[in-house]
């Protein structure tokens, strides 16, 4: 039989290990202390935002909510690796990315309370709205990247999705287009080990997600998704690679969903306490904190300040969110077409 010579070893790229030590100085990006602090502060902010969301949901003020806890390094590390002119195309779990890009937190709450106005103004930060149908947003990013290329813009598109999304045809068709047309698109898969109750192993028989890049002839990188430096470095490199016309990259951020899938879920039904406990030890925020402490840019005062500040911002957002007027029912008929067709005009009149 054929003597195939196949070796597929994607190294799990890491800079900061679980003890908060730099294990890869060569690749450590040049970051000023303020940059590192900004990473930390954004990760904490995302965590506080998230905790508050879970609380608001329990109190019935949000409908449901998809927590990002455990994925802060993947989201913040990647988001700040993008330039302002770059596009981001999220799934539904990217609250951290939204926050890092500057989308108002009160509007995120508003969205998760079932108010579509929470997705307003994304054009000012080159973002697409939350995409619920898993994987469906992936080809949109390819199209955006391609348009930018055709229009001679320097902008890159980064698209976020989960491990489960890689099973969808939209992933396949979209990434294949990206390979064929060499569009400046970065595919960021947050492999958080679960698609609701379906484990990564039951999602696909491939040993890693990243090796799917081979099917499309594009670059692939496997990165420790709980290591904000590694994620930042890998995404920045992929983005610059894309920007300079060298084509798309599939990045697998190896990470973990520490909470329930959404607030409608109960993870105790399908995964073990031990597993969750094990991953808690890898908490991306803790890890960065240890590093900062060892570098002398973290102390209890700073810690208090960061969390207090995050809490203040989030309370402010909560307050704002809670004081927003309910949408007008007539909004239903808005933004369906550029110009309302007579059918809907009549239905609207009927409604009034």
């Amino acid at each position, binding site marked *: 039989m054929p003597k195939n010579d196949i070796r597929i070893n994607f190294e799990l790229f890491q800079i900061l290990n679980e003890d908060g030590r730099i294990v890869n100085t060569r690749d450590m990006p040049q970051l000023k202390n303020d940059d590192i602090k900004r990473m930390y502060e954004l990760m904490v902010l995302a965590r506080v935002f998230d905790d508050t969301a879970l609380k608001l949901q329990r109190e019935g003020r949000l409908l449901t909510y998809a927590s990002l806890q455990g994925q802060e390094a993947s989201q913040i590390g990647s988001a700040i690796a993008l330039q302002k002119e770059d596009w981001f195309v999220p799934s539904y779990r990217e609250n951290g990315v939204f926050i890092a890009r500057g989308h108002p937190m009160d509007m995120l709450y508003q969205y998760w309370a079932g108010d579509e106005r929470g997705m307003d103004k994304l054009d000012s930060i080159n973002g697409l709205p939350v995409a619920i149908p*898993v994987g469906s947003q992936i080809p949109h990013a390819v199209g955006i990247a391609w348009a930018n290329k055709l229009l001679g813009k320097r902008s890159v598109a980064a698209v976020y999705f989960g491990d489960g999304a890689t*099973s969808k*045809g939209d992933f396949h068709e979209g990434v294949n287009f990206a390979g064929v047309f060499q569009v400046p698109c970065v595919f960021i898969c947050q492999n958080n080990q679960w698609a609701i109750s379906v484990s990564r192993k039951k*999602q696909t028989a491939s040993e890693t997600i990243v090796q799917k890049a081979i099917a499309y002839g594009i670059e692939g990188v496997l990165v420790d998704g709980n290591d904000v430096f590694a994620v930042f470095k890998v995404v920045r490199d992929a983005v610059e690679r894309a920007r300079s016309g060298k084509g798309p990259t599939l990045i697998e951020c190896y990470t973990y969903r520490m909470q329930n899938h959404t607030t409608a879920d109960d993870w105790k039904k399908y995964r073990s306490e031990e597993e969750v406990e094990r991953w808690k030890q890898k908490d991306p925020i803790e890890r960065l904190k240890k590093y900062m402490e060892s570098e002398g840019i973290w102390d209890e005062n700073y810690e208090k300040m960061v969390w207090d500040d995050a809490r203040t911002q989030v309370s402010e957002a909560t307050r704002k969110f809670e004081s927003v007027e309910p949408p007008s029912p007539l909004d239903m008929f808005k933004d369906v077409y550029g110009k309302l067709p007579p059918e809907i005009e009549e239905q609207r009149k009927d409604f009034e």
Partner: protein
Amino acid sequence: MTRMNLVQAINLALKQEMERDSTVVLMGEDVGKDGGVFRVTEGLWQQFGDSRVIDTPLAEVGIISVAIGMAIAGMKPVTEVQFDGFSLPMLDQLYNHAGRMRKRSQGKYHVPLVLRIPHGGGIRALEHHSESLETFFTHIPGIKVVAPSGPYNAKGLLVSSIRDPDPVVFLEPKRVYRAIKEEVPEEEYEIPLNKAEVVQEGSDITVIAWGAMQKIVREAIEQLNGKYSIEIIDLLTLYPLDRNTVIDSVKKTGRCVVVQEAPRTCGYGAELIATINEKALLSLEAPVQRVTGYDVPMPLPKLENYYIPDATRINKAIETVMSF
């Protein structure tokens, strides 16, 4: 007889059919250990194991198209899609293959599968979780479309759907899942897939609805306090349609309101009106009124109740028809 909600009734039907026929398998995302996002398959994985209650990868086309192959080769897959919006990628395989394999193979193969879809809005869910897509299914040749409205008929219709030799799309009114309980026999029974039910007889006007709209219609009519003698029809199956029951009723009452949650244009209600036009035009004393969703995307929860037909709109339509 036990009092059950719709989730329990469907769960029981699945359990009994699986006990009865070892070729029945459940397939879908999170239908196993997790018991499904609506807990409809709860306990079945524990009873029947991995090879009968199958957690699939996250791939709706995969689910329906692999199930087609399984059905051709002798299984009876009962597939689940989690929410309406995610069933759209399945239309291709439903149209081009599931509904057509019998024809394509000159009757040598058939596709006895069921596609269960939690249907419609009203549970304050996320975007794409609350659509009403029955038009898409009823327009596909070779497919049957079933729309139970409560626990009792859901159980009997599901049993018939599983035993049916053709592909059946089974639309479960998700807002009714836990909203009502009914007496449901423990033993198995079938409700035929070609019969509508006259829920209430009347002589002034016929009101037709299916699925979750039945409940709304009944509540609306209750508010009228017997002002009119209203005949209520619950279609139960959308394709084939029990046209006799519809036509006989409209011929008797001469007036009709059709209630549909889906967007208005090309909704299933249009087909009902076309049928009435063809077979009972001369009996009509007023235009049939449609109470429908609007030609806009299903709004997010903050506005969905303005979109979904409610008692006010239904009764307004009844008044319009009665006072025509």
